[in-house]
């Protein structure tokens, strides 16, 4: 028995040695070339993480060496500081280089590392030998050589490290040297550094570019690898109508959220501008609801409210009247006090306006041929003549001044500076411009072009970034709005009584056409003229329609919460609005069905 067990032991030892040998000679699994590459890349990744034994075991079992023998030799020599050995391996690798001319650079770097390490350890004589015997003969980069020879004057390793920007032998510089050398050799000899990390990063970035409703501020290396990235539409894209506001007596033509997201102003043919308050419900948090705040009247001879503009500090509201509008009115939104009524000439038609950043100055204009710079304090200040203005916006410029962007009847979008009286044509559209809207960060301009769609222009690069199609055209004015945390979403009205929402950030890839078609929100009973995104509650959208209502749209997840809150009652001061949130909204097949 003992003998038997002893024999077993003995044969066991012999067996395992044999097995090891066998494995080294013929691996257990036969791998295709692609699989072999994958193993090499994984092995490199493991080694970078510090799991050297796992990497070795992997190489052994798969039979795919990570790199050629000479390269492995070179690597270990460098890491151990065996400079002569490293030089020898490098010489044998010379033939494998992409370009023969990079040889001197590699040799220089190797010698440079040797030189710096010698200096650091205080062996100045040896360092000088390296300088003279190895670095100088290569005749590579005389500037660097000069700087290196200057370092010999350093009094100690600290000063050396500081002056040269080199972090020392122990500071990972040997690995950095290897990383920098890898690029000169083909992958069969040496793998490019961090190959698997690079591949994973590329994959995640590709997923992000295909994400249809990408709405997150996380960077690609924070996203999970375990599942393809795709932002949930339910959380970010409005799809459900949570409120129908029917306080208006006639068609509603304009709706605008204030820049701080607290107010909503709406106006239309009934010559009334209504200010609504946006309240984020306390329980559950984050479900915003709108309630009536003030009703402001403009004179009935004015044909209706044509445009509403909020001052950048969200304190003042400016209203322009329709066609025969000679006067604009400014109110304080909180109290409803009329701060200013501004009129300049009797034959004016002031149908569009925009505020300047100081919340005191504003520009107004129309298609009679003049637009004016005015202020709340002083009134009319300056005029620019002979331009028939269709839409206005303002933008801060690099030198601190503010440019006024005006779209005119010749389909041009031009830039005007009232302080320097300079003007310049920025873009030419290929069809008549109906309206224009600038994003909150002032980088993008959405231009509604009649019978064409919404064109997005980049104001820094001065190019057209996107042409958005899919809205229904007709004879009436439409307005668009840019919203979302990264200015990724564009919404506009449409003649078929639906609200169009696009996600512009999506790269055109496979299925490119699909990504550029809008999601359409149904519910209104008439033409939708104007839409507005809430700048603070991203995903909250208001739309104004000829059916005399304004609808509030929320992402499905928020809407469910908002409806639950409204089930308790209509809220205080609820004159003029109904919490009829249960309206159907047909959305495109790319979205999950609403939670109702």
């Amino acid at each position, binding site marked *: 028995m003992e003998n038997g067990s002893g024999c077993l032991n003995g044969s066991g030892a012999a067996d395992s040695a044999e097995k090891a040998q066998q494995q080294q000679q013929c691996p257990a699994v036969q791998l295709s070339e692609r699989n072999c590459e994958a193993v090499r890349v994984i092995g490199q990744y493991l080694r970078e993480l510090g799991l050297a034994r796992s990497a070795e075991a992997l190489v052994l079992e798969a039979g795919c060496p990570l790199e050629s023998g000479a390269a492995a030799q070179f690597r270990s020599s460098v890491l151990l500081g065996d400079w002569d050995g490293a030089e020898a391996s490098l010489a044998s690798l010379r033939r494998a280089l992409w370009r023969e001319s990079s040889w001197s650079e590699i040799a220089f770097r190797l010698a440079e590392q040797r030189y710096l390490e010698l200096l650091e350890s205080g062996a100045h004589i040896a360092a000088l030998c390296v300088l003279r015997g190895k670095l100088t003969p290569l005749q590579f980069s005389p500037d660097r050589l000069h700087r290196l020879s200057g370092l010999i004057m350093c009094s100690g390793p600290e000063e050396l490290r500081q002056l040269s920007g080199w972090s020392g032998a122990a500071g990972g510089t040997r690995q950095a040297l290897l990383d920098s050398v890898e690029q000169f050799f083909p992958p069969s000899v040496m793998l490019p550094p961090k190959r698997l990390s690079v591949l994973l990063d590329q994959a995640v970035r590709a997923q992000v570019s295909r994400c249809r409703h990408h709405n997150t501020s996380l960077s690609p290396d924070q996203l999970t690898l375990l599942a393809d990235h795709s932002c949930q539409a339910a959380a970010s894209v409005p799809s459900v109508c949570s409120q129908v506001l029917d306080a208006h*007596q*006639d*068609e509603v*033509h304009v709706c605008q959220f204030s820049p701080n997201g607290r107010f909503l102003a709406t106006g239309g*043919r*009934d*010559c009334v501008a209504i200010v609504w308050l946006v309240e984020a419900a306390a329980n559950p948090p984050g479900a915003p609801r709108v309630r009536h705040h003030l009703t402001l009247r403009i004179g*009935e001879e*004015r*044909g*209706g409210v*044509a445009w509403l503009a909020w001052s950048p500090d969200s304190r003042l509201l400016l209203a322009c009247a*329709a066609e025969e509008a000679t006067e604009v009115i400014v109110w304080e939104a909180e109290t409803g006090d009329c701060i200013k009524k501004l009129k300049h000439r009797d034959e004016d038609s002031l149908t569009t306006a925009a505020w300047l950043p100081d919340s005191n100055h504003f520009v107004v204009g129309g*298609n009679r*041929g003049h637009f004016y710079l005015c202020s709340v304090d002083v009134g009319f200040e300056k005029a620019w*003549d*002979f*331009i*028939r203005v269709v839409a206005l916006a303002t933008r801060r410029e690099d030198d601190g001044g503010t440019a006024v962007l005006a779209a005119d*009847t*010749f389909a*041009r979008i*031009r830039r005007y500076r009232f302080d320097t009286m300079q*003007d310049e*044509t920025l873009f030419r559209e290929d069809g*008549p411009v*109906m309206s224009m809207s600038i994003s909150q960060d002032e980088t993008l301009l959405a231009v509604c072009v*009649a019978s064409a769609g919404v064109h997005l222009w980049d104001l820094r690069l001065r190019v057209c970034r996107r042409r958005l199609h899919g809205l229904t055209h007709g*004879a*009436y*004015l439409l307005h668009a709005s840019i919203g979302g945390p990264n200015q990724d979403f564009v919404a506009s009205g449409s003649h078929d009584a639906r609200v169009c929402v696009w996600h512009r950030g999506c790269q055109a890839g496979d299925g490119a056409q699909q990504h550029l078609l809008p999601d359409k929100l149904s519910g209104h009973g*008439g*033409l939708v*003229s104007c839409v507005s995104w809430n700048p603070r509650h991203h995903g909250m959208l208001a739309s104004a329609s*000829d059916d005399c209502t304004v609808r509030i749209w929320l992402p499905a997840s928020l809407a469910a919460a908002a409806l639950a809150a409204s089930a308790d009652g209509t809220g205080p001061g609820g004159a003029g609005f109904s919490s009829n949130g249960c309206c159907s909204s047909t959305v495109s097949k790319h979205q999950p069905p609403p939670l109702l």
Partner: protein
Amino acid sequence: KSPGFNASYSMGRLHIEHMGGERVFSCANCDCPLTNRQQLISTRFTGATGRAFLFNRVVNLDTSELQDRVMLTGRHMVRDVSCRKCKTKLGWVYEFATEESQQYKEGKIILERALINESEGFPDPVKD
């Protein structure tokens, strides 16, 4: 109906284009801009109310269904045009001329002189 209601408006705010120009022609009834002197091709036409002008391009018009009309100059297929804002009939547009000598009119618009106003505009100051 609400105070701002006007029977001439239908839905929404109409998108009204403006061609500019130094002499502007507009609808005599509602002053809606239509075209300018640069687009004028000929003044020697006759309409229902008397003199009529032939223009190259006119904006803010609605067109009727296609009609077969025999005129002094021959048989033409035309559509009546009216002001988009106030719906007043202003003239017609030639769509097809049966006689070769009349084909130059195709696509051009006739506006009756009595139904339009001419007013002072201004030149475009932009030079580029």
